[in-house]
Structure formats: structure tokens, C-alpha cells
């Protein structure tokens, strides 16, 4: 009877494609919006993720997220180094400085100053040059997106000429020479990322009494990052978080203080509702139109269980195909636009699971409506002409 159920479903092309369309749209919208949301949220803490070596980040207790810089005194670094269980602790400068472009415009850049001696916290992937080239005079490393985009010069024909090794920039009136191009996560505001040494970064930065943004700390073997963070916080009165905690704090800030989750939540909800409305109602109508055939089947000896399994199989089929098409489209969308534009797109398995659940809910809703009709169906209606 499963065969009959599938032929009933797929034989009515209009309804079949209508249901599939609804589910595909729902699946696409939910996956796409969730992926963009996750992509955006991932960008908020991308810098923390990229700084892979440190177990613990120490900072001013008032810091709310990675870009909320509340500088520390340099002496705090020594205090942290004195905490038992610290293998090493290095300073990190992070700030926004303006780069002057050829055309006279200014471009805000995310400047990262790495510990001069170890260069800990530097980019993991160098596309051109080497990280240790930062030790050369006025040296900076640019991220690939910044070099190809906002920091690119304009040629005579107006086409962008990407910044490359050897190019020079003016950072806050200081000359800087590009010695490398690296690949890092895009920042939330899509600003170019400029890596240099801590001492050079603080010399580029406007004069302030305190310039140390964060202290990156490595735990000695045998002590967990959480334990070390507790010790640092207790001993120094600084805030200290493990890498994962700092990522969470950052993402929570954006979740709490920006309208992003609400906006995306509404879009996801709309996708869900549109899918439910189109697929649910089409599926329900499909069942209604087939009610007399279900009644005939019932009269001919099909049990309620058989009829229900037919409806469930129909719902599972359209649900599965709609889910596959929708998530496939969303993945294609992300793959295409993610590499060609600034689009933030990240599609982890959790989103696929969430979308599958949402589609299952839509299908369940649609089939429950239909199942109710089928179960209550009085087979005697077949004799009513």
C-alpha cells in the first residue's frame, strides 16, 4: 500500500510540487537565515578562535566582548606571569586605527599587536611572507580580505590592485610596510586586520597611559584552563576566561544587546510559517481531495493503521525531499555568495538537525490534520455518490 500512497502523492503533480515547493522554501529559508545568523555570530568571536595557542584570556573585568577594549597597565602582565600554574603569558594589543589610502580616504583597521619575542596570537595561515617577518622595520601583515578589498589601491583603470608584500600603508601617520598576507576569520564589521608587533602597535596607536588590551595565558600541564582562570581572577583581580568562555561572553553580548537574534529569529519564524502554510495546507487539501479514495480503500478492507501509514509515508517523502532540496539550495547559496561577497554563512550540523526538526514539525502538523480526517472517515461515504 506504500506504493499506492506514493503514486497517489506523486501522480498529482500540481499538489506534489506545491507541497515540495512549500517545504523546500521553508527548509531553505530556515537553513539560510540560521546559517547567516551563525556565520555572523561566529565572526564576532573569530579573532578569539584564530588565536589558538592561549588557554586563558585575562582582561579588565568590565570588558563585555572581544572588541570592547578596556586597556590595562603593562604591569598587569607581570602580575599574571606570577600566578602559579602559568606556563607563559604574553601581551596583546587590539585596537582600531585608521589607515590612510592612496586616494586620501581613511579606512579603519583592526590592528593587532603580538608579543614581540614570541609573536603568539599571530595568524595560523600565511598566504604570502612569514610571520617572523614582522620583526623587520615597520612591518605589518594584512589579512587577505583586507588586502584584496578595502586596502586595495585603485589602478588607472579604476580596477583594484590588491596590497601585496612590499606595499606600504600609513597607519595613524606612521609608515607601515606589508611583509605578509594572511588568512584569518572575517571580522564582524569586515574591517581589514593588520598584524604587527606589540611594541609597534602601541607606537602606531594614539598616546594613552594604558595600551595593553588583553593578556594571553598558557596553562602549565596538569592545570586546566578553568582552574588557571580562577587563580588569575583571584590573584590579580582581572577577569580571566577560558577561550570557550570568552567566545560565549562575546556572542552573548551580541545576542543580548543587538537586534540581530530577533531579526533573524523573525526571518526563521517566517520561513517556518510560510512552509507550514504552503506545505501544510496543500498537503491537507491533497488528503481532503483524496478522502473519497481513502474511504474506498477503507471499505475495501484497508485498516486505519494502513491508511495512517500511507499518509505518514507521503509526509515523510515530501518532508525528506523538501528538506534535501531546501538545505541543498541553502548550502549552494552559502557556497556561492560566501566566497564572492562579504556574506557570513556557516552551516554546522546543528542547523541541519534544527531544520530537519522544523520540517518534521511542519509535516507532522500537516499530516495530523490529514490523519484526523482519515481516522474519522466513515467508509459509508463511498456509497453517497
Amino acid at each position: 500500500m506504500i506504493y499506492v500512497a506514493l503514486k497517489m502523492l506523486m501522480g498529482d503533480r500540481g499538489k506534489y510540487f506545491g507541497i515540495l515547493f512549500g517545504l523546500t522554501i521553508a527548509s531553505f529559508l530556515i537553513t539560510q537565515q540560521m546559517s547567516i545568523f551563525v556565520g555572523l555570530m561566529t565572526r564576532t568571536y573569530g579573532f578569539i578562535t584564530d588565536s589558538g595557542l592561549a588557554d586563558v584570556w585575562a582582561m579588565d573585568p568590565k570588558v563585555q566582548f572581544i572588541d570592547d577594549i578596556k586597556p590595562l597597565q603593562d604591569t598587569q602582565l607581570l602580575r599574571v606571569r606570577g600566578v602559579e600554574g602559568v606556563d607563559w603569558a604574553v601581551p596583546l594589543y587590539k585596537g582600531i586605527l585608521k589607515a590612510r589610502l592612496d586616494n586620501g580616504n581613511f579606512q579603519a583597521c583592526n590592528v593587532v599587536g603580538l608579543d614581540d619575542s614570541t609573536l603568539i596570537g599571530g595568524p595560523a595561515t600565511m598566504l604570502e611572507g612569514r610571520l617572523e617577518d614582522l620583526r623587520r622595520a615597520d612591518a605589518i601583515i594584512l589579512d587577505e580580505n583586507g588586502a584584496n578589498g578595502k586596502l586595495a589601491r585603485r589602478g588607472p583603470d579604476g580596477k583594484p590592485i590588491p596590497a601585496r608584500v612590499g606595499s606600504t600603508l600609513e597607519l595613524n601617520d606612521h609608515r607601515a610596510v606589508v611583509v605578509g598576507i594572511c588568512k584569518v576569520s572575517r571580522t564582524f564589521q569586515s574591517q581589514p586586520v593588520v598584524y604587527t608587533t606589540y611594541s609597534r602597535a602601541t607606537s602606531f596607536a594614539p598616546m594613552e597611559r594604558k595600551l595593553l588590551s588583553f593578556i594571553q595565558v598558557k596553562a602549565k600541564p596538569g592545570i586546566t584552563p578553568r582552574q588557571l582562570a580562577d587563580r588569575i581572577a583571584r590573584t590579580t583581580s582581572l577577569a580571566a576566561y577560558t577561550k570557550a568562555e570568552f567566545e560565549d561572553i562575546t556572542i552573548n553580548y551580541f545576542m543580548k544587546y543587538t537586534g540581530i537574534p530577533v531579526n533573524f529569529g523573525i526571518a526563521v519564524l517566517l520561513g517556518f510559517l510560510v512552509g507550514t502554510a504552503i506545505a501544510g495546507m496543500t498537503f491537507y487539501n491533497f488528503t481532503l481531495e483524496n478522502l473519497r479514495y481513502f474511504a474506498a480503500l477503507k471499505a475495501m478492507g484497508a485498516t486505519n493503521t494502513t491508511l495512517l501509514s500511507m499518509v505518514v509515508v507521503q509526509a515523510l517523502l515530501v518532508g525528506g525531499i523538501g528538506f534535501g532540496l531546501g538545505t541543498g539550495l541553502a548550502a549552494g547559496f552559502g557556497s556561492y555568495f560566501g566566497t564572492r561577497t562579504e556574506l557570513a554563512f556557516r552551516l554546522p550540523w546543528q542547523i541541519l538537525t534544527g531544520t530537519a526538526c522544523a520540517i518534521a514539525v511542519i509535516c507532522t502538523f500537516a499530516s495530523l490534520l490529514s490523519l484526523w480526517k482519515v481516522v474519522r472517515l466513515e467508509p459509508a461515504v463511498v456509497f453517497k455518490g
Partner: protein
Amino acid sequence: MPIATESAVVLQGVTKTYGSGDAKVTALRGVDLEVRAGELLMLVGPSGCGKTTLISVVAGILDQDDGECLVFGEDLNGMRDRDRVRYRGRNIGFVFQSFNLIPTLTAAENVAVPLLILGSPRREAIRTASEALDRVGIGDRGHSLPSELSGGQQQRVAIARSLVHRPRLIVCDEPTSALDHQTGHKVLELLREVALADGRSMIIVTHDARIFSFADRIAKMDDGRIVEIVSPSSLK
């Protein structure tokens, strides 16, 4: 026309009421009826006299409120729902007024449905269905969709469907109402020839006086009662 004496269906004092209070409608008022094995019995009467209710009770689709309905000696009313549905699937074939062929299935697939319901493998069911279509004279239309068939051909498919699982009783509801006279006549000839061939019993509900001659007996109903059982020749 030979009439066997063994009883296929026995109804005694069957009553059926719909609704309650002011909306109460009594459809059957103590119906007594016997349908013999191998017999073609026609149920005739004005609209609303209870014919459809009666065949629904006989087919185990509706429960009577009172009285006894034995189908091949089995009291369907006393069976559990599931058992009754299975009994119906095995022993009763249906020919509906509006054919009720599933429009997205081919003729052969439609005919195979009762076998599929009974759990036959699909290939085997389709093969048997094709043979049934041969028997009703449209073996070459097995791959056609119902929309590609004429009314008469669709009714032949419906007849093949009612026979394919070799039921012992066939219940037909106005089998000729959607057909012209000539086609209706042919369909009844076919029903008599094919459906009764294996000693099956058949109950046909009809208004169509032109087909009365095909019956072995005609039960006239009025206001929920069998008022008269006559032979077709007595109506001439």
C-alpha cells in the same frame, strides 16, 4: 437462472437509526432478508428508503443498532473493528456508483488494490489484476489511467477490482447510473457472467428499471423496510 439455496446473507430484524432527539432518522426498521449463495439480488426503492444503509450494514461498513446480520454465517457486528475490516477485505467486493478509481493509478494498479490491501506482493498483484482485466474484456487497457478510459471501461475496471481477490459477496451501488443504457446493459451482462460465475452472491442497489431483468430476485424497499420480494418476471 439457477438459484442456490445456501444462505450468503441473513438479516433478521435489523434496525438502524441516525442522529438523536429531533434529528433522529430511522433508516432501517426491522429488515428481514436472505441473500442466497450464487444469487443476484437487486435492492430497489425510492431515494432515502434505506437501500444504501442496508448494503452498508451487510458489507460491515455500518453497525446495525438492533437485529442480526450474518454474512456467510459470521456476525459482523460482533467482530472487533480490525477483524471486521479484514473480513470485509477478504470476502466482500465493491462496485461503487462513481467507480472510485484512484486517478493516479493505472487500471491494472487500481484493480490490484484489494490484493495489495490483503498483503500480496505488488508484482503478483499486478499480474493477477491484469488477468482480471482480461476477464472483463479490457486486458489491453491495463496501463491506462482512469481519465483515459470511457465510463463503461472505468466501470469494467471497477468490476475487475471487485472480483480480483475472489470475494464471496459483491456489493454494487448504482453500477449503471453513470452509464448510458447500452453500456449499462453490457456492464450488467458482464457482472452476471463474470461475478456470479464462481457461485458468488451479489447485491445491487439500483433505481434503473432497465436492468431489473438481470436479477434473480428483487427486494423492494420503502421507509426502511423490505416491502416485497419479487421475481423480475413479475414486474413485466
